[in-house]
């Protein structure tokens, strides 16, 4: 692999009409983060980092985002396969429905989840009366809210990869005696692994920052449903400095995790 370089051949650097907007784009994304760093209450940081509530929230955030990503993988990858590989009437509509959580304001998503899975919800009332399961105000509820919001990112990413992948590999597997499921598991899945990984990272990041659907569906209780974004939001009411500090902790941890994963893929491939 060649290291990417701005300088290419005799024709000099990247053309200005591309370079300029690219740098503006970078600044646009990075500047708010820099501002956070500049204004961060570095002196009160140690005190915040030793607070059990912060650790609880951080731990809960990581656990729930990871669980939501796992849920998204288990049901989202087959869904993406269905959308990419199986012709059925109304497929376009189903694809639009899948992306719905992307446009829905997360708070509305949370309300919709309550209406569906709440104690009094369309499905939730049966869960409650038959199995005694109630989802709101539980950690499971957090995972569900996060998965609801994050899964479309995974599905879209995986479906795109599947569409780009050559379906004839599945045919080749079939001629070798593989059932459709075996072909999917042993051929398609490894082939689209990079797309799945990218989708999983997007979903994880989205789940980690999820606020609206989580607080609406799962509520806010320290140690059970209070994730970092919720803690940040509530800190913002009283103590904006603490909110900035908490956000930085969340940012640092997510950057560490993503960078760590990236390194592992780079060395694996």
């Amino acid at each position: 692999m060649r290291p990417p370089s701005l300088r290419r051949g005799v024709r000099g650097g990247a053309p200005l009409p591309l370079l300029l907007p690219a740098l503006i784009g970078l600044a646009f994304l990075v500047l708010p983060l820099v501002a956070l760093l500049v204004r961060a209450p570095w002196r009160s940081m140690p005190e915040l980092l030793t607070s059990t509530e912060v650790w609880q929230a951080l731990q809960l955030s990581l656990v729930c985002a990871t669980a939501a990503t796992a849920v998204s993988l288990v049901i989202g990858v087959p869904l993406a396969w269905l959308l990419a590989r199986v012709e059925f009437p109304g497929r376009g509509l189903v694809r639009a429905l899948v992306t719905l959580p992307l446009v829905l304001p997360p708070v509305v998503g949370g309300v919709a989840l309550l209406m569906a899975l709440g104690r009094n919800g369309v499905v939730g009332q049966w869960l409650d009366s038959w199995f005694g399961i109630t989802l709101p105000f539980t950690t499971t509820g957090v995972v569900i809210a996060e998965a609801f919001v994050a899964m479309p990112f995974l599905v879209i990413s995986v479906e795109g990869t599947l569409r780009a992948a050559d379906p004839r590999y599945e045919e080749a597997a079939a001629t070798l005696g593989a059932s459709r499921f075996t072909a999917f598991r042993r051929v398609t899945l490894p082939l689209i692994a990079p797309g799945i990984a990218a989708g999983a990272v997007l979903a994880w990041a989205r789940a980690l920052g999820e606020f609206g659907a989580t607080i609406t569906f799962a509520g806010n209780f320290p140690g059970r449903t209070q994730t970092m974004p919720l803690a940040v939001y509530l800190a913002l009411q009283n103590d904006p400095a603490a909110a900035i500090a908490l956000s930085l902790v969340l940012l640092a941890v997510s950057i560490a995790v993503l960078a760590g994963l990236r390194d592992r893929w780079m060395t694996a491939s």
Partner: protein
Amino acid sequence: MTDPETTTLAAPEPAGEGLDARLVVERGSFRLDVELTAAPGDVVALLGPNGAGKTTALRALAGLVPLTGGHLRLDGVEMDRMPPDARPVGVVFQDYLLFPHLSALDNVAFGPRCHGATKAEARAQAAAWLERLGLAEHGSAKPRRLSGGQAQRVALARALATRPRLLLLDEPLAALDARTRLDVRAQLRHHLAEFEAVAVLVTHDPLDAMVLADHLVVIEDGRVVQRGTPADIARRPRTDYIAHLVGLNLYRGEAEGHTVRIDRKSTIATTEDLTGPVFVAFPPNAVTLHQDRPSGSSARNLWHCEVTGMETHGDQIRVALTGELPLAADLTTVAAAELGLRPGARVWAAVKAAQTHAYPA
């Protein structure tokens, strides 16, 4: 086929071994209707221009395209409703489609694994196949590290490892460059000759077809236009496409004894004594060109023609001519230079009757 009773139940009329198929596939305005029969050990080539339906026929045999009509029996077993993974069929795809994430060995072991072998058994079988195809030391290589010829052999090993009763090869040599092609073609011929069941290969290259196959089935526009042994088809082409493929001048006309009348305006003298509709064929190298009308020549056919085009063809020059008859002539570069040939030049073309070949149409 371990239980003889089931065998009789499955095939009440003891059908012969091998392939017996009539493949009908309709898709939009295209209709494929091809009959194919072959005995175990036969190598059949489907030859035809692009879009003729060869690959569709192959995919129908593999079960990747459903039949809309006809039938498909292999060794007496009805196969036309069987899903591809249940058919005892192996396929070598045009670009091989080796699974890029698996090593050569695991590619070959894939089939046996799907057929119930344990991982160790499958790998042992795969290793044996690779060994047999001379790839023993490439087992651990990923497909992208293999040369074109090696990849082709891995694909063949992968298809053979399921011990298919029908081996299908889609343009098996098309992805190779000219130099490796020669080698690989020879090896493939060797392996196909060893294969004990039916092999069907699809190609648009007449040389591949003639070298590799015992029987040719020529398909044009979804239909069989000619079938026979390679030698038969090369000598007696029945369509312009085949004649062009095998490099023959081909005419259709009305025979009266040793004379064949073409289009009412010109005639060809032949050695065969025939009457009625016939084909007449002769190779381009049977044509000699002359600046002036040759006299005292033993050639019995003589036409005044105009040069319309020239192209190099190996170490020869192929000259396209029009006039009384459209025809192609091959001559050496030296001869072409001596004659001062250029498009528009008028020359005499001569062909000995003994070098033509007439046969009933």
